């Protein structure tokens, strides 16, 4: 292994350590099951390792990882395997079931889940989320607004329990 490979490996290990939790949480929010989320997590880092072009800065790198995670999740949902064997694979995740709010969020329509996660957990602003969801830029502010509305209702519902 040459010096370049060692440097590349160390850089890759740093990125994996930095973003591993973020990718897993995003995938888990979108897919609602840990097994698929771990597959996506593995795929995303495989793609990152193979990605040749340099990133402009850390924010660009993070946004790239978020978009690739989102696209990989969509690919998993669309795959024929998922359609045919959903009953076998979508076993309830005990770990998530113990988390009150997260288990409510993963029951929401998929387009709101990531927006809620990015807004409330990652701390992105509406405009930044629009930039990440490039192709749905015009609809994004509405989605964020609706997501906020949903979370407020869920919050109120939860507090009323």
């Amino acid at each position, binding site marked *: 292994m040459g010096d370049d490979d060692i440097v590349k490996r160390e850089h890759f290990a740093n990125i994996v350590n930095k973003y591993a939790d973020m990718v897993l949480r995003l995938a888990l929010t979108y897919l609602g099951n840990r097994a698929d989320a771990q597959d996506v997590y593995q795929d995303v*880092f495989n793609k990152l390792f193979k990605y040749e072009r340099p990133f402009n800065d850390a924010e660009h790198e993070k946004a790239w990882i978020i978009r690739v995670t989102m696209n990989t999740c969509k690919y998993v949902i669309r795959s024929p395997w998922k359609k045919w064997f959903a009953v076998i694979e979508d076993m309830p995740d005990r770990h998530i079931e113990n988390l009150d709010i997260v288990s409510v969020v993963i029951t929401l329509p998929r387009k709101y889940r990531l927006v809620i996660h990015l807004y409330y957990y990652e701390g992105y602003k509406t405009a930044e989320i629009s930039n990440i969801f490039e192709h749905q830029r015009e609809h994004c502010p509405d989605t964020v607004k609706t997501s906020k509305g949903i979370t407020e209702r869920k919050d109120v519902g939860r507090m009323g329990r």
Partner: protein
Amino acid sequence: MKFRTEYVKEMNEIKANEELKNTIINQAASNAIGLPTVAHRRRSKVGIIIASSVIMLILFLSIETLWIYDKAEK
């Protein structure tokens, strides 16, 4: 605000598995990207179960057909 606080608190409990992290890093180091992922392994198991069930069914039907023919001849 309460939603954000609780959501962040719960999300912080979800952490990536150290073992999987190391596997990914080691795969990259050995240039072995493309090794079967967790999904591939799980799907192969289900695939093997389905394939063996189909083979068993075919065998059962063949034996039964032979048995019926044999009985009919007698």
